[in-house]
């Protein structure tokens, strides 16, 4: 036994193995810190109202109250807010996917004076703080009567997102032109080529954009906060903040945590289902950025 341990410290492979074990231990401790908040959230969501504010707390509720979730759904009108969120997310995804791939085709395949200058301006806007355009944009939507509708969230998605146009353009540049050239010989228009040739080849990049758009739109708090005032039009993100009760201590923390738990389920499911797209998207930006 002792000699085995001594060998671990002395030999090269032994040291490498020790290194791996140490790394694993550090990573596992870190992972526990990442996961504790989630555990705490679920634990609170299953407690009785009277068991929430006790110290020391119960980590695992003795008698899990699953009906807290039912109560939270009814009290918060969760169905209405989930529907609002879903409508916005779906239209924003359609708009973003269309505008990214449509514009990217122009930027990557067709030549025109000023094209690259426009592209550079577009890239520059990625660094622009949103605050600068905030007030005039709000006033514009207000003057055309769009405040308190979903349109300020949805319509801009149809006019391109700099980052996604950039990603798609980089992707299109890597696709060989032969297919398009032969279609061109057969008399196809550029619009047909975009629709029948480029789009079907765009699966991976569109999936990447779709998952990022879903997460960003679903989690967006600021835009619906400033544009929506009717309770019945609030998204989940905004509705949650009205559920938190008094600013000091939410009096119904168990219900609030049940609602929060439900609210993070869709992005987590998407993340589990589409993990590789998240990673791929990041890798592309990391390397090319």
């Amino acid at each position: 036994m002792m000699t085995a341990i001594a060998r671990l410290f002395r030999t090269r492979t032994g040291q490498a193995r020790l290194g791996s074990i140490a790394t694993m231990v550090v990573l596992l401790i870190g992972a526990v810190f990442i996961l504790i908040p989630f555990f705490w959230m679920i634990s609170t969501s299953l407690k009785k109202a009277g068991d929430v504010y006790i110290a020391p707390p119960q980590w695992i509720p003795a008698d899990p109250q699953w009906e807290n979730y039912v109560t939270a759904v009814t009290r918060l009108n969760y169905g209405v807010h989930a529907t609002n969120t879903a409508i916005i997310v779906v239209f924003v995804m359609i708009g973003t996917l269309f505008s990214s791939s449509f514009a990217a085709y122009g930027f990557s395949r067709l030549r025109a004076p000023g094209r690259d200058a426009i592209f550079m301006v577009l890239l520059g806007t990625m660094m622009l703080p949103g605050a600068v355009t905030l007030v005039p944009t709000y006033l514009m939507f207000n003057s055309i009567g769009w405040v308190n509708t979903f349109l300020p969230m949805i319509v801009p998605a149809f006019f391109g997102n700099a980052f996604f146009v950039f990603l798609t353009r980089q992707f299109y540049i890597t696709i060989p032109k032969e297919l398009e050239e032969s279609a061109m010989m057969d008399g196809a228009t550029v619009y047909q080529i975009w629709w029948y040739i480029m789009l079907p080849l765009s699966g991976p990049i569109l999936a990447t954009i779709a998952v990022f758009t879903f997460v960003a739109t679903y989690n967006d708090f600021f835009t619906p906060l400033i544009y929506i005032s009717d309770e019945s039009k609030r998204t989940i993100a905004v509705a949650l903040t009205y559920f938190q009760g008094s600013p000091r201590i939410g009096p119904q923390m168990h219900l609030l945590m049940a609602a929060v738990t439900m609210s993070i389920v869709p992005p987590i499911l998407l993340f589990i289902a589409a993990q590789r797209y998240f990673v791929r998207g990041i890798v592309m930006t990391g390397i090319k950025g």
Partner: protein
Amino acid sequence: MVQKSGTIDARRLGKRERREAMHAYVFMSPVIIGLLVFTLGPIIVSLFLSFSNYNLLNDPKWIGVDNYVKMYGERLFWQSLRVSAIYSIVSVPLGMTIALFLALLLNRTMRGIYTLRAIYYLPTVISGVGVAMLWRWIFNGQYGVINTLLRNVGVKGPNWLLDENYALIALIITSVWGVGGTMLIFLAGLQGIPVEINEAAEIDGAGKWGQFRYITLPMISHVTFFNLVLGIIGALQVFTDAYVITNGGPNNATLFIAVYLYRHAFQFLNFGYAAALAWVLFIIVMVLTLLVFRSSPLWVFYEQERQEK
């Protein structure tokens, strides 16, 4: 493309080029309209508004630099700058260091490594109001999980969110929890380093630290640059956490610029003053970004340069 040009053919080519350009503009039109209507137009209008007084009820009134003068004398404006500055100066380097450290540990092949990477990235996917509310509960002075853990090791934790000395620290801790995105970008950078370089260095007797300092760091410096620029821009615009977790308090200890701006625009309807604030923020972000870009030749090492040498 196949033209061997004579004069007539050249004119035809011109026509074809014109048609190609026309199609190009059609494809680019959503982006061009979007740039004009949602970006460039509003930037100009907001500059104009920043020199005016406007509250939706009457027409904007030109008041020159009054908004900027008022801002200069406003204690809360300086407080918001201070809060955002402290937050950025601490959270960006801290987050990047932890992200790089994690990326180095996660950049190996072993069982369960993909699950671990996914766990560290998870907070990035669900960032938002729900998580911000979860943090409020975690930082609760009496019943929160942090102070419970501290109590277990014999430390009496502060009343985080109600104590002006600790509220900003609490927000910095929440930002560190979400370093997964930065970590993944570092990881991508690390995976771009050819294994042979480290192997060669090891044969030449370079230690682990030497390899990290003289190979890894320079080889990922472009990724560090990318993370730094994004980190600064993001940190200066924090809103949701500050609004939901502390709402700028206690005693303005977490009054970030974005929260201050939100109040003036959408609670006090001081649209002119809010636009002036936005322009100050814009200029700060531009200057900082420019400084980082200017400094980059000193510490960012690009692939092309290496090949040219």
